[in-house]
Protein backbone atom coordinates (compact mmCIF):
# COMPACT_ATOMS: atom_id res chain seq x y z
CA UNK A 1 0.00 0.00 0.00
CA UNK A 2 2.60 2.51 1.13
CA UNK A 3 4.75 1.92 -1.93
CA UNK A 4 1.85 2.53 -4.28
CA UNK A 5 0.82 5.72 -2.52
CA UNK A 6 4.37 7.04 -2.69
CA UNK A 7 4.74 6.49 -6.41
CA UNK A 8 2.98 9.62 -7.69
CA UNK A 9 4.95 11.92 -5.35
CA UNK A 10 8.38 10.58 -6.32
CA UNK A 11 7.72 10.28 -10.02
CA UNK A 12 10.93 10.91 -11.86
CA UNK A 13 11.73 10.31 -15.53
CA UNK A 14 12.94 6.82 -14.67
CA UNK A 15 9.68 5.82 -13.00
CA UNK A 16 7.66 7.31 -15.85
CA UNK A 17 9.67 5.26 -18.29
CA UNK A 18 9.28 2.21 -16.11
CA UNK A 19 5.53 2.58 -15.78
CA UNK A 20 5.26 3.09 -19.55
CA UNK A 21 7.23 -0.07 -20.05
CA UNK A 22 4.92 -1.83 -17.58
CA UNK A 23 1.88 -0.61 -19.45
CA UNK A 24 3.26 -1.75 -22.79
CA UNK A 25 4.26 -5.13 -21.42
CA UNK A 26 0.85 -5.50 -19.79
CA UNK A 27 -0.76 -4.65 -23.11
CA UNK A 28 1.47 -7.08 -24.93
CA UNK A 29 0.75 -9.74 -22.34
CA UNK A 30 -2.93 -9.10 -22.71
CA UNK A 31 -2.80 -9.29 -26.48
CA UNK A 32 -0.84 -12.52 -26.46
CA UNK A 33 -3.18 -14.01 -23.89
CA UNK A 34 -6.16 -13.01 -26.01
CA UNK A 35 -4.55 -14.55 -29.03
CA UNK A 36 -4.09 -17.77 -27.12
CA UNK A 37 -7.50 -17.98 -25.50
CA UNK A 38 -10.21 -15.36 -25.00
CA UNK A 39 -12.56 -17.30 -22.75
CA UNK A 40 -12.35 -18.61 -19.20
CA UNK A 41 -14.86 -21.07 -17.75
CA UNK A 42 -15.25 -20.85 -13.98
CA UNK A 43 -17.52 -23.25 -12.08
CA UNK A 44 -18.22 -24.13 -8.46
CA UNK A 45 -19.42 -22.65 -5.17
CA UNK A 46 -22.81 -20.93 -5.27
CA UNK A 47 -21.54 -18.62 -2.52
CA UNK A 48 -18.75 -17.34 -4.74
CA UNK A 49 -20.48 -17.30 -8.10
CA UNK A 50 -22.16 -13.85 -7.81
CA UNK A 51 -18.86 -12.28 -6.70
CA UNK A 52 -16.71 -13.94 -9.34
CA UNK A 53 -19.32 -13.10 -11.96
CA UNK A 54 -19.06 -9.39 -11.03
CA UNK A 55 -15.26 -9.65 -11.13
CA UNK A 56 -15.61 -11.27 -14.54
CA UNK A 57 -17.73 -8.40 -15.85
CA UNK A 58 -15.18 -5.83 -14.70
CA UNK A 59 -12.33 -7.92 -16.11
CA UNK A 60 -14.12 -8.16 -19.46
CA UNK A 61 -14.54 -4.39 -19.63
CA UNK A 62 -10.83 -3.88 -18.81
CA UNK A 63 -9.73 -6.53 -21.30
CA UNK A 64 -11.95 -6.24 -24.39
CA UNK A 65 -12.35 -9.49 -26.31
CA UNK A 66 -12.23 -11.73 -23.27
CA UNK A 67 -15.15 -13.68 -21.86
CA UNK A 68 -15.51 -14.94 -18.30
CA UNK A 69 -18.18 -17.63 -18.05
CA UNK A 70 -19.28 -18.30 -14.44
CA UNK A 71 -21.46 -21.29 -13.54
CA UNK A 72 -22.58 -22.52 -10.12
CA UNK A 73 -22.65 -26.08 -8.87
CA UNK A 74 -21.05 -26.23 -5.45
CA UNK A 75 -17.49 -26.37 -4.18
CA UNK A 76 -17.09 -30.10 -4.76
CA UNK A 77 -18.18 -29.65 -8.36
CA UNK A 78 -15.82 -26.69 -8.76
CA UNK A 79 -12.85 -28.75 -7.64
CA UNK A 80 -13.90 -31.75 -9.70
CA UNK A 81 -14.30 -29.55 -12.80
CA UNK A 82 -10.86 -28.02 -12.28
CA UNK A 83 -9.34 -31.51 -11.94
CA UNK A 84 -11.19 -32.90 -14.99
CA UNK A 85 -10.42 -29.84 -17.08
CA UNK A 86 -14.11 -29.06 -17.54
CA UNK A 87 -13.40 -25.61 -16.10
CA UNK A 88 -10.32 -23.40 -16.26
CA UNK A 89 -10.88 -22.33 -12.66
CA UNK A 90 -12.90 -23.99 -9.91
CA UNK A 91 -14.49 -22.02 -7.09
CA UNK A 92 -14.41 -23.56 -3.60
CA UNK A 93 -15.77 -21.73 -0.58
CA UNK A 94 -13.36 -23.55 1.74
CA UNK A 95 -9.65 -24.15 2.12
CA UNK A 96 -8.18 -26.99 0.04
CA UNK A 97 -8.18 -30.33 1.83
CA UNK A 98 -4.91 -32.21 2.43
CA UNK A 99 -5.74 -34.69 -0.36
CA UNK A 100 -6.15 -31.76 -2.75
CA UNK A 101 -2.62 -30.47 -2.20
CA UNK A 102 -1.62 -31.11 -5.83
CA UNK A 103 -4.06 -28.37 -6.86
CA UNK A 104 -3.32 -24.64 -6.72
CA UNK A 105 -5.54 -22.54 -4.47
CA UNK A 106 -5.81 -18.74 -4.64
CA UNK A 107 -7.72 -17.07 -1.82
CA UNK A 108 -9.64 -14.04 -3.11
CA UNK A 109 -11.79 -13.20 -0.04
CA UNK A 110 -13.13 -14.55 3.26
CA UNK A 111 -16.62 -15.46 4.34
CA UNK A 112 -18.09 -16.30 7.73
CA UNK A 113 -21.02 -18.55 8.59
CA UNK A 114 -23.40 -17.16 11.16
CA UNK A 115 -26.29 -18.51 13.20
CA UNK A 116 -29.46 -16.54 12.46
CA UNK A 117 -32.72 -16.13 14.41
CA UNK A 118 -35.89 -14.18 13.73
CA UNK A 119 -35.69 -10.56 14.93
CA UNK A 120 -38.67 -11.10 17.26
CA UNK A 121 -36.87 -13.90 19.09
CA UNK A 122 -35.66 -12.40 22.43
CA UNK A 123 -32.55 -14.64 22.54
CA UNK A 124 -29.41 -12.48 22.12
CA UNK A 125 -26.72 -15.12 22.44
CA UNK A 126 -26.24 -18.88 22.50
CA UNK A 127 -23.21 -20.90 23.58
CA UNK A 128 -21.64 -23.41 21.20
CA UNK A 129 -22.98 -26.25 23.37
CA UNK A 130 -26.50 -24.84 23.28
CA UNK A 131 -26.38 -24.56 19.50
CA UNK A 132 -25.11 -28.12 19.29
CA UNK A 133 -27.89 -29.35 21.61
CA UNK A 134 -30.53 -27.50 19.57
CA UNK A 135 -29.28 -29.01 16.33
CA UNK A 136 -29.10 -32.53 17.78
CA UNK A 137 -32.61 -32.33 19.21
CA UNK A 138 -31.62 -32.35 22.93
CA UNK A 139 -33.06 -28.84 23.38
CA UNK A 140 -36.41 -28.54 21.59
CA UNK A 141 -38.00 -25.50 23.25
CA UNK A 142 -36.71 -21.91 23.45
CA UNK A 143 -37.73 -21.89 27.15
CA UNK A 144 -34.75 -24.14 27.95
CA UNK A 145 -32.27 -21.50 26.77
CA UNK A 146 -34.13 -18.58 28.34
CA UNK A 147 -36.50 -17.69 25.53
CA UNK A 148 -40.24 -17.90 24.95
CA UNK A 149 -42.20 -21.10 25.49
CA UNK A 150 -42.19 -22.17 21.84
CA UNK A 151 -40.89 -25.20 19.95
CA UNK A 152 -37.65 -24.61 18.06
CA UNK A 153 -37.65 -24.99 14.27
CA UNK A 154 -34.24 -26.25 13.19
CA UNK A 155 -33.19 -25.23 9.67
CA UNK A 156 -30.42 -27.33 8.13
CA UNK A 157 -28.67 -27.33 4.73
CA UNK A 158 -28.96 -30.03 2.07
CA UNK A 159 -26.20 -32.66 1.68
CA UNK A 160 -23.14 -31.70 -0.27
CA UNK A 161 -23.15 -27.95 0.49
CA UNK A 162 -19.91 -26.57 1.84
CA UNK A 163 -21.80 -24.45 4.39
CA UNK A 164 -23.15 -27.67 5.91
CA UNK A 165 -19.72 -29.26 5.81
CA UNK A 166 -18.12 -26.30 7.60
CA UNK A 167 -20.93 -26.13 10.18
CA UNK A 168 -20.68 -29.85 10.97
CA UNK A 169 -16.90 -29.63 11.16
CA UNK A 170 -16.97 -26.69 13.59
CA UNK A 171 -19.53 -28.27 15.91
CA UNK A 172 -17.98 -31.76 15.47
CA UNK A 173 -21.29 -33.21 14.34
CA UNK A 174 -22.32 -35.73 11.71
CA UNK A 175 -25.35 -35.00 9.52
CA UNK A 176 -27.05 -38.07 11.05
CA UNK A 177 -27.04 -36.39 14.48
CA UNK A 178 -28.99 -33.38 13.26
CA UNK A 179 -32.73 -33.29 13.93
CA UNK A 180 -33.89 -30.81 11.31
CA UNK A 181 -37.41 -29.55 10.67
CA UNK A 182 -36.54 -27.81 7.43
CA UNK A 183 -33.81 -28.57 4.92
CA UNK A 184 -32.92 -25.74 2.57
CA UNK A 185 -30.82 -25.29 -0.55
CA UNK A 186 -29.27 -21.85 -0.90
CA UNK A 187 -28.65 -19.02 1.57
CA UNK A 188 -31.62 -16.94 0.44
CA UNK A 189 -34.05 -19.80 0.98
CA UNK A 190 -32.65 -20.21 4.51
CA UNK A 191 -33.03 -16.51 5.27
CA UNK A 192 -36.61 -16.45 3.92
CA UNK A 193 -37.45 -19.50 6.03
CA UNK A 194 -36.10 -17.93 9.25
CA UNK A 195 -37.63 -14.55 8.42
CA UNK A 196 -41.02 -16.24 8.07
CA UNK A 197 -40.85 -18.19 11.35
CA UNK A 198 -40.17 -16.41 14.69
CA UNK A 199 -39.09 -19.67 16.32
CA UNK A 200 -36.60 -20.85 13.70
CA UNK A 201 -32.81 -21.13 13.92
CA UNK A 202 -30.63 -21.45 10.86
CA UNK A 203 -27.11 -20.83 9.58
CA UNK A 204 -26.03 -18.97 6.44
CA UNK A 205 -23.13 -16.94 5.04
CA UNK A 206 -22.45 -13.77 7.05
CA UNK A 207 -22.22 -11.77 3.86
CA UNK A 208 -25.74 -12.67 2.70
CA UNK A 209 -27.19 -12.46 6.23
CA UNK A 210 -25.71 -9.03 7.00
CA UNK A 211 -26.83 -7.68 3.63
CA UNK A 212 -30.41 -8.89 4.18
CA UNK A 213 -30.50 -7.82 7.85
CA UNK A 214 -29.53 -4.26 6.86
CA UNK A 215 -32.13 -4.29 4.10
CA UNK A 216 -35.15 -4.81 6.30
CA UNK A 217 -35.36 -8.61 6.45
CA UNK A 218 -36.30 -9.49 10.08
CA UNK A 219 -33.35 -11.66 11.08
CA UNK A 220 -30.66 -11.38 13.78
CA UNK A 221 -27.07 -12.59 13.47
CA UNK A 222 -25.89 -14.29 16.67
CA UNK A 223 -22.35 -13.90 18.03
CA UNK A 224 -20.23 -17.04 18.43
CA UNK A 225 -18.03 -17.41 21.53
CA UNK A 226 -18.95 -13.77 22.36
CA UNK A 227 -17.45 -12.59 19.08
CA UNK A 228 -20.03 -10.66 17.03
CA UNK A 229 -20.74 -11.99 13.55
CA UNK A 230 -19.66 -9.06 11.38
CA UNK A 231 -17.52 -8.33 8.37
CA UNK A 232 -14.89 -6.78 10.67
CA UNK A 233 -14.42 -9.86 12.87
CA UNK A 234 -14.11 -12.09 9.83
CA UNK A 235 -11.55 -9.75 8.26
CA UNK A 236 -9.53 -9.76 11.46
CA UNK A 237 -9.69 -13.55 11.37
CA UNK A 238 -11.10 -13.76 14.91
CA UNK A 239 -14.60 -15.00 14.02
CA UNK A 240 -14.54 -18.73 14.78
CA UNK A 241 -16.76 -19.95 11.95
CA UNK A 242 -15.22 -18.47 8.81
CA UNK A 243 -13.80 -19.77 5.56
CA UNK A 244 -11.61 -18.62 2.70
CA UNK A 245 -13.12 -18.22 -0.79
CA UNK A 246 -10.66 -19.96 -3.05
CA UNK A 247 -10.06 -20.10 -6.79
CA UNK A 248 -8.65 -23.49 -7.75
CA UNK A 249 -6.50 -24.37 -10.76
CA UNK A 250 -4.93 -27.64 -11.77
CA UNK A 251 -1.71 -26.14 -13.12
CA UNK A 252 0.28 -23.01 -12.23
CA UNK A 253 -1.71 -20.34 -14.10
CA UNK A 254 -0.30 -18.70 -17.23
CA UNK A 255 -1.56 -16.18 -19.78
CA UNK A 256 -5.14 -15.02 -19.39
CA UNK A 257 -5.64 -17.34 -16.41
CA UNK A 258 -2.79 -15.67 -14.54
CA UNK A 259 -4.03 -12.20 -15.47
CA UNK A 260 -7.48 -12.99 -14.13
CA UNK A 261 -6.29 -14.53 -10.86
CA UNK A 262 -3.95 -11.57 -10.25
CA UNK A 263 -6.90 -9.28 -10.94
CA UNK A 264 -9.19 -11.21 -8.55
CA UNK A 265 -6.57 -11.01 -5.81
CA UNK A 266 -5.82 -7.31 -6.36
CA UNK A 267 -7.47 -4.45 -4.50
CA UNK A 268 -9.15 -3.39 -7.76
CA UNK A 269 -12.05 -5.66 -6.79
CA UNK A 270 -12.37 -4.67 -3.11
CA UNK A 271 -15.53 -2.69 -3.74
CA UNK A 272 -17.13 -5.71 -5.44
CA UNK A 273 -16.20 -7.94 -2.50
CA UNK A 274 -17.54 -5.42 0.03
CA UNK A 275 -20.73 -4.95 -1.95
CA UNK A 276 -21.48 -8.65 -1.45
CA UNK A 277 -20.54 -8.46 2.26
CA UNK A 278 -17.55 -10.69 1.87
CA UNK A 279 -14.23 -9.72 3.35
CA UNK A 280 -11.38 -8.67 1.01
CA UNK A 281 -7.91 -10.07 1.59
CA UNK A 282 -6.44 -6.55 1.36
CA UNK A 283 -7.49 -3.91 3.88
Amino acid at each position, binding site marked *: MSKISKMPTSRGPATVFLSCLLCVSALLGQVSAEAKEGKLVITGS*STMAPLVSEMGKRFESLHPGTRIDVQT*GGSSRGIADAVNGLADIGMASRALKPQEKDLYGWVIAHDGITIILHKDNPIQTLTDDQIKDIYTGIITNWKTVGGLDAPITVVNK*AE*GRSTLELFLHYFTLSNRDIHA*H*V*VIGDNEQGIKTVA*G*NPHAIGYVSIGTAQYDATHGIPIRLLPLQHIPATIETVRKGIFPLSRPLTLVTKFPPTGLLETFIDFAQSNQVNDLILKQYFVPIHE
Partner: protein
Amino acid sequence: MISSSSNISSRSTSEGLLSWTVRLLALMAGGLLLLVVLFLFREAWPALQHIGVARFFSDPGWYPTEDAYRLTPMIWGTVWATAGSILLASPLGILSALFCHFYAPPLLGRWYRRMVELLAGIPSVVFGFWGLVVLVPLIGRWHPPGPSLLAGILILTLMIIPTIMLVAHASMAQVPVAYIHSATALGFSRWSMIWHVILPTTKVGLFTGILLGLARALGETMAVLMVCGNVVRTPSHLFDPIRTLTANIALEMAYALGQHRAALFVSGLLLLGLAMLCVGMAEGLRYRNAYVATK
Protein backbone atom coordinates in the same frame (compact mmCIF):
# COMPACT_ATOMS: atom_id res chain seq x y z
CA MET B 1 -64.88 -31.59 -61.17
CA ILE B 2 -61.70 -31.52 -63.17
CA SER B 3 -60.01 -29.36 -60.65
CA SER B 4 -61.08 -31.65 -57.82
CA SER B 5 -59.65 -34.74 -59.55
CA SER B 6 -56.35 -32.94 -60.08
CA ASN B 7 -56.47 -32.02 -56.42
CA ILE B 8 -56.84 -35.65 -55.45
CA SER B 9 -53.94 -36.77 -57.63
CA SER B 10 -51.67 -34.03 -56.30
CA ARG B 11 -52.78 -34.83 -52.77
CA SER B 12 -51.65 -38.43 -53.11
CA THR B 13 -48.02 -37.42 -53.62
CA SER B 14 -48.08 -34.68 -51.01
CA GLU B 15 -49.97 -36.97 -48.69
CA GLY B 16 -47.30 -39.61 -49.06
CA LEU B 17 -44.69 -37.04 -48.15
CA LEU B 18 -46.79 -35.85 -45.23
CA SER B 19 -47.42 -39.34 -43.95
CA TRP B 20 -43.72 -40.14 -43.99
CA THR B 21 -42.84 -36.87 -42.27
CA VAL B 22 -45.41 -37.57 -39.60
CA ARG B 23 -44.11 -41.11 -39.18
CA LEU B 24 -40.58 -39.82 -38.83
CA LEU B 25 -41.61 -37.23 -36.25
CA ALA B 26 -43.56 -39.84 -34.29
CA LEU B 27 -40.55 -42.11 -34.36
CA MET B 28 -38.38 -39.25 -33.09
CA ALA B 29 -40.78 -38.49 -30.22
CA GLY B 30 -40.92 -42.14 -29.21
CA GLY B 31 -37.19 -42.55 -29.68
CA LEU B 32 -36.51 -39.52 -27.52
CA LEU B 33 -38.45 -41.05 -24.63
CA LEU B 34 -36.57 -44.28 -25.10
CA LEU B 35 -33.27 -42.36 -25.07
CA VAL B 36 -34.23 -40.57 -21.85
CA VAL B 37 -35.03 -43.90 -20.18
CA LEU B 38 -31.80 -45.43 -21.45
CA PHE B 39 -29.83 -42.40 -20.23
CA LEU B 40 -31.46 -42.63 -16.79
CA PHE B 41 -30.54 -46.32 -16.62
CA ARG B 42 -26.97 -45.68 -17.73
CA GLU B 43 -26.44 -42.93 -15.13
CA ALA B 44 -28.17 -44.92 -12.39
CA TRP B 45 -26.31 -48.12 -13.25
CA PRO B 46 -23.27 -47.57 -10.95
CA ALA B 47 -25.61 -47.17 -7.99
CA LEU B 48 -27.79 -50.14 -8.95
CA GLN B 49 -24.68 -52.25 -9.37
CA HIS B 50 -22.62 -51.20 -6.33
CA ILE B 51 -25.33 -50.29 -3.85
CA GLY B 52 -27.94 -52.76 -5.01
CA VAL B 53 -31.68 -52.30 -5.29
CA ALA B 54 -32.46 -53.69 -1.83
CA ARG B 55 -30.38 -51.10 0.01
CA PHE B 56 -32.50 -48.25 -1.37
CA PHE B 57 -35.27 -49.68 0.81
CA SER B 58 -33.33 -51.14 3.75
CA ASP B 59 -30.59 -48.60 4.56
CA PRO B 60 -30.95 -46.75 7.87
CA GLY B 61 -31.50 -43.38 6.19
CA TRP B 62 -30.59 -41.02 3.35
CA TYR B 63 -27.03 -39.85 4.09
CA PRO B 64 -25.43 -40.13 0.66
CA THR B 65 -22.11 -38.62 1.78
CA GLU B 66 -21.96 -41.27 4.51
CA ASP B 67 -22.96 -44.16 2.22
CA ALA B 68 -26.61 -44.63 3.24
CA TYR B 69 -29.24 -44.41 0.54
CA ARG B 70 -32.75 -45.15 1.83
CA LEU B 71 -35.32 -43.76 -0.62
CA THR B 72 -38.53 -45.05 1.01
CA PRO B 73 -39.36 -41.85 2.98
CA MET B 74 -39.13 -39.82 -0.23
CA ILE B 75 -41.37 -42.27 -2.11
CA TRP B 76 -43.96 -41.87 0.64
CA GLY B 77 -43.51 -38.11 0.57
CA THR B 78 -44.17 -38.03 -3.16
CA VAL B 79 -47.13 -40.41 -2.92
CA TRP B 80 -48.84 -38.57 -0.04
CA ALA B 81 -48.34 -35.11 -1.49
CA THR B 82 -49.65 -36.18 -4.91
CA ALA B 83 -52.57 -38.20 -3.53
CA GLY B 84 -53.59 -35.42 -1.16
CA SER B 85 -53.57 -32.77 -3.84
CA ILE B 86 -55.54 -34.97 -6.26
CA LEU B 87 -58.14 -35.70 -3.57
CA LEU B 88 -58.57 -31.98 -2.94
CA ALA B 89 -58.23 -30.67 -6.47
CA SER B 90 -60.43 -33.17 -8.34
CA PRO B 91 -63.76 -32.28 -6.70
CA LEU B 92 -62.85 -28.59 -6.62
CA GLY B 93 -61.83 -28.56 -10.27
CA ILE B 94 -64.85 -30.51 -11.48
CA LEU B 95 -67.28 -28.51 -9.35
CA SER B 96 -65.88 -25.22 -10.57
CA ALA B 97 -66.19 -26.45 -14.17
CA LEU B 98 -69.84 -27.33 -13.45
CA PHE B 99 -70.38 -23.92 -11.90
CA CYS B 100 -68.79 -22.19 -14.83
CA HIS B 101 -70.74 -24.18 -17.41
CA PHE B 102 -74.21 -24.61 -15.86
CA TYR B 103 -74.72 -22.24 -12.96
CA ALA B 104 -72.81 -19.01 -13.59
CA PRO B 105 -74.33 -16.24 -15.70
CA PRO B 106 -72.57 -16.30 -19.11
CA LEU B 107 -70.51 -13.16 -18.52
CA LEU B 108 -69.33 -14.25 -15.07
CA GLY B 109 -68.65 -17.77 -16.39
CA ARG B 110 -66.48 -16.41 -19.17
CA TRP B 111 -64.46 -14.21 -16.83
CA TYR B 112 -64.18 -17.01 -14.31
CA ARG B 113 -62.77 -19.33 -16.95
CA ARG B 114 -60.31 -16.68 -18.09
CA MET B 115 -59.07 -16.27 -14.54
CA VAL B 116 -58.56 -19.99 -14.15
CA GLU B 117 -56.67 -20.02 -17.46
CA LEU B 118 -54.45 -17.28 -16.06
CA LEU B 119 -53.93 -19.36 -12.91
CA ALA B 120 -52.79 -22.25 -15.12
CA GLY B 121 -50.16 -20.00 -16.67
CA ILE B 122 -48.50 -18.89 -13.42
CA PRO B 123 -45.02 -20.43 -13.20
CA SER B 124 -44.62 -22.96 -10.41
CA VAL B 125 -41.77 -21.02 -8.79
CA VAL B 126 -44.19 -18.14 -8.18
CA PHE B 127 -46.56 -20.50 -6.39
CA GLY B 128 -43.60 -21.76 -4.38
CA PHE B 129 -42.48 -18.27 -3.45
CA TRP B 130 -45.97 -17.30 -2.37
CA GLY B 131 -46.18 -20.51 -0.36
CA LEU B 132 -42.85 -19.81 1.32
CA VAL B 133 -43.62 -16.25 2.41
CA VAL B 134 -47.40 -16.47 3.02
CA LEU B 135 -48.72 -20.00 3.41
CA VAL B 136 -45.85 -21.57 5.37
CA PRO B 137 -45.74 -18.83 8.08
CA LEU B 138 -49.55 -19.15 8.41
CA ILE B 139 -49.34 -22.90 8.95
CA GLY B 140 -46.36 -22.31 11.24
CA ARG B 141 -48.43 -20.06 13.50
CA TRP B 142 -51.11 -22.71 13.67
CA HIS B 143 -48.91 -25.77 14.08
CA PRO B 144 -45.10 -25.21 13.98
CA PRO B 145 -42.75 -25.55 12.16
CA GLY B 146 -44.82 -24.70 9.06
CA PRO B 147 -43.06 -26.27 6.06
CA SER B 148 -45.04 -29.48 5.86
CA LEU B 149 -46.89 -32.09 3.86
CA LEU B 150 -49.99 -29.89 4.26
CA ALA B 151 -48.27 -26.87 2.71
CA GLY B 152 -47.15 -29.07 -0.20
CA ILE B 153 -50.65 -30.49 -0.71
CA LEU B 154 -52.24 -27.02 -0.67
CA ILE B 155 -49.76 -25.55 -3.14
CA LEU B 156 -50.04 -28.55 -5.47
CA THR B 157 -53.84 -28.34 -5.24
CA LEU B 158 -53.74 -24.70 -6.32
CA MET B 159 -51.50 -25.64 -9.21
CA ILE B 160 -53.55 -28.54 -10.58
CA ILE B 161 -57.09 -27.17 -10.09
CA PRO B 162 -56.81 -25.18 -13.35
CA THR B 163 -55.68 -28.25 -15.29
CA ILE B 164 -58.53 -30.39 -14.02
CA MET B 165 -61.07 -27.60 -14.35
CA LEU B 166 -60.17 -26.59 -17.89
CA VAL B 167 -60.15 -30.15 -19.24
CA ALA B 168 -63.45 -30.88 -17.47
CA HIS B 169 -64.91 -27.67 -18.88
CA ALA B 170 -63.79 -28.53 -22.40
CA SER B 171 -65.36 -31.98 -22.24
CA MET B 172 -68.60 -30.57 -20.83
CA ALA B 173 -68.77 -28.18 -23.77
CA GLN B 174 -68.71 -31.22 -26.06
CA VAL B 175 -71.82 -32.86 -24.57
CA PRO B 176 -74.38 -32.91 -27.46
CA VAL B 177 -77.00 -30.19 -27.02
CA ALA B 178 -79.66 -32.80 -27.74
CA TYR B 179 -78.82 -34.57 -24.45
CA ILE B 180 -79.36 -31.38 -22.51
CA HIS B 181 -82.55 -30.54 -24.39
CA SER B 182 -83.94 -34.03 -23.81
CA ALA B 183 -83.10 -33.91 -20.13
CA THR B 184 -84.80 -30.54 -19.83
CA ALA B 185 -87.82 -31.79 -21.77
CA LEU B 186 -88.07 -34.74 -19.40
CA GLY B 187 -88.34 -32.26 -16.55
CA PHE B 188 -84.92 -33.08 -14.95
CA SER B 189 -83.78 -30.62 -12.34
CA ARG B 190 -80.45 -29.00 -13.10
CA TRP B 191 -78.60 -31.15 -10.58
CA SER B 192 -80.16 -34.46 -11.67
CA MET B 193 -79.33 -33.60 -15.28
CA ILE B 194 -75.70 -33.06 -14.23
CA TRP B 195 -75.63 -36.22 -12.15
CA HIS B 196 -77.38 -38.53 -14.63
CA VAL B 197 -76.44 -37.06 -18.00
CA ILE B 198 -73.43 -34.74 -17.90
CA LEU B 199 -71.11 -36.59 -15.53
CA PRO B 200 -71.57 -40.04 -17.14
CA THR B 201 -71.02 -38.67 -20.66
CA THR B 202 -67.93 -36.64 -19.67
CA LYS B 203 -66.38 -39.38 -17.52
CA VAL B 204 -63.45 -40.00 -19.87
CA GLY B 205 -62.69 -36.28 -20.12
CA LEU B 206 -62.79 -35.89 -16.35
CA PHE B 207 -60.38 -38.80 -15.93
CA THR B 208 -58.05 -37.29 -18.50
CA GLY B 209 -58.05 -34.00 -16.57
CA ILE B 210 -57.32 -35.74 -13.29
CA LEU B 211 -54.58 -37.75 -14.96
CA LEU B 212 -52.95 -34.60 -16.31
CA GLY B 213 -53.22 -33.00 -12.87
CA LEU B 214 -51.68 -36.10 -11.34
CA ALA B 215 -48.75 -35.94 -13.74
CA ARG B 216 -48.17 -32.27 -12.94
CA ALA B 217 -48.34 -32.88 -9.19
CA LEU B 218 -45.98 -35.85 -9.41
CA GLY B 219 -43.39 -33.95 -11.42
CA GLU B 220 -43.63 -30.60 -9.65
CA THR B 221 -40.29 -29.64 -8.15
CA MET B 222 -39.61 -25.99 -7.33
CA ALA B 223 -42.83 -25.13 -5.49
CA VAL B 224 -42.68 -28.32 -3.46
CA LEU B 225 -39.01 -27.79 -2.65
CA MET B 226 -39.79 -24.35 -1.26
CA VAL B 227 -42.72 -25.25 1.02
CA CYS B 228 -42.29 -28.87 2.13
CA GLY B 229 -39.30 -28.61 4.47
CA ASN B 230 -37.32 -31.29 2.61
CA VAL B 231 -36.51 -33.36 5.71
CA VAL B 232 -36.02 -37.00 4.74
CA ARG B 233 -38.52 -38.71 7.03
CA THR B 234 -41.69 -40.71 6.39
CA PRO B 235 -44.49 -38.33 7.40
CA SER B 236 -46.79 -39.49 10.21
CA HIS B 237 -49.20 -36.58 10.01
CA LEU B 238 -50.08 -33.57 7.86
CA PHE B 239 -47.78 -31.16 9.71
CA ASP B 240 -44.61 -33.24 9.26
CA PRO B 241 -42.07 -31.96 6.74
CA ILE B 242 -41.51 -34.18 3.72
CA ARG B 243 -39.06 -34.45 0.86
CA THR B 244 -40.31 -35.56 -2.53
CA LEU B 245 -38.21 -37.47 -5.07
CA THR B 246 -38.18 -34.44 -7.38
CA ALA B 247 -37.07 -32.07 -4.61
CA ASN B 248 -34.34 -34.54 -3.67
CA ILE B 249 -32.91 -34.40 -7.18
CA ALA B 250 -33.15 -30.60 -7.39
CA LEU B 251 -31.62 -30.03 -3.95
CA GLU B 252 -28.65 -32.30 -4.31
CA MET B 253 -27.91 -32.83 -8.00
CA ALA B 254 -25.76 -29.71 -8.35
CA TYR B 255 -23.56 -30.89 -5.48
CA ALA B 256 -23.56 -34.62 -6.00
CA LEU B 257 -20.60 -36.70 -7.16
CA GLY B 258 -19.99 -40.40 -7.77
CA GLN B 259 -22.39 -42.81 -6.06
CA HIS B 260 -24.42 -39.94 -4.63
CA ARG B 261 -25.09 -38.69 -8.15
CA ALA B 262 -25.97 -42.15 -9.40
CA ALA B 263 -28.35 -42.60 -6.44
CA LEU B 264 -30.13 -39.40 -7.50
CA PHE B 265 -30.61 -40.90 -10.95
CA VAL B 266 -32.18 -43.88 -9.19
CA SER B 267 -34.69 -41.41 -7.67
CA GLY B 268 -35.33 -40.24 -11.22
CA LEU B 269 -35.97 -43.81 -12.35
CA LEU B 270 -38.35 -44.35 -9.44
CA LEU B 271 -40.21 -41.19 -10.36
CA LEU B 272 -40.53 -42.45 -13.92
CA GLY B 273 -41.81 -45.75 -12.53
CA LEU B 274 -44.41 -43.96 -10.41
CA ALA B 275 -45.54 -41.91 -13.40
CA MET B 276 -45.86 -45.08 -15.52
CA LEU B 277 -47.84 -46.78 -12.76
CA CYS B 278 -50.25 -43.84 -12.62
CA VAL B 279 -50.70 -43.74 -16.39
CA GLY B 280 -51.19 -47.51 -16.43
CA MET B 281 -53.81 -47.35 -13.69
CA ALA B 282 -55.64 -44.49 -15.37
CA GLU B 283 -55.58 -46.30 -18.70
CA GLY B 284 -56.98 -49.44 -17.08
CA LEU B 285 -59.72 -47.45 -15.40
CA ARG B 286 -60.55 -45.65 -18.61
CA TYR B 287 -60.64 -48.87 -20.60
CA ARG B 288 -62.98 -50.50 -18.10
CA ASN B 289 -65.26 -47.48 -18.09
CA ALA B 290 -65.35 -47.25 -21.86
CA TYR B 291 -66.15 -50.94 -21.92
CA VAL B 292 -69.00 -50.56 -19.43
CA ALA B 293 -70.34 -47.59 -21.34
CA THR B 294 -70.48 -49.43 -24.68
CA LYS B 295 -72.00 -52.45 -23.03
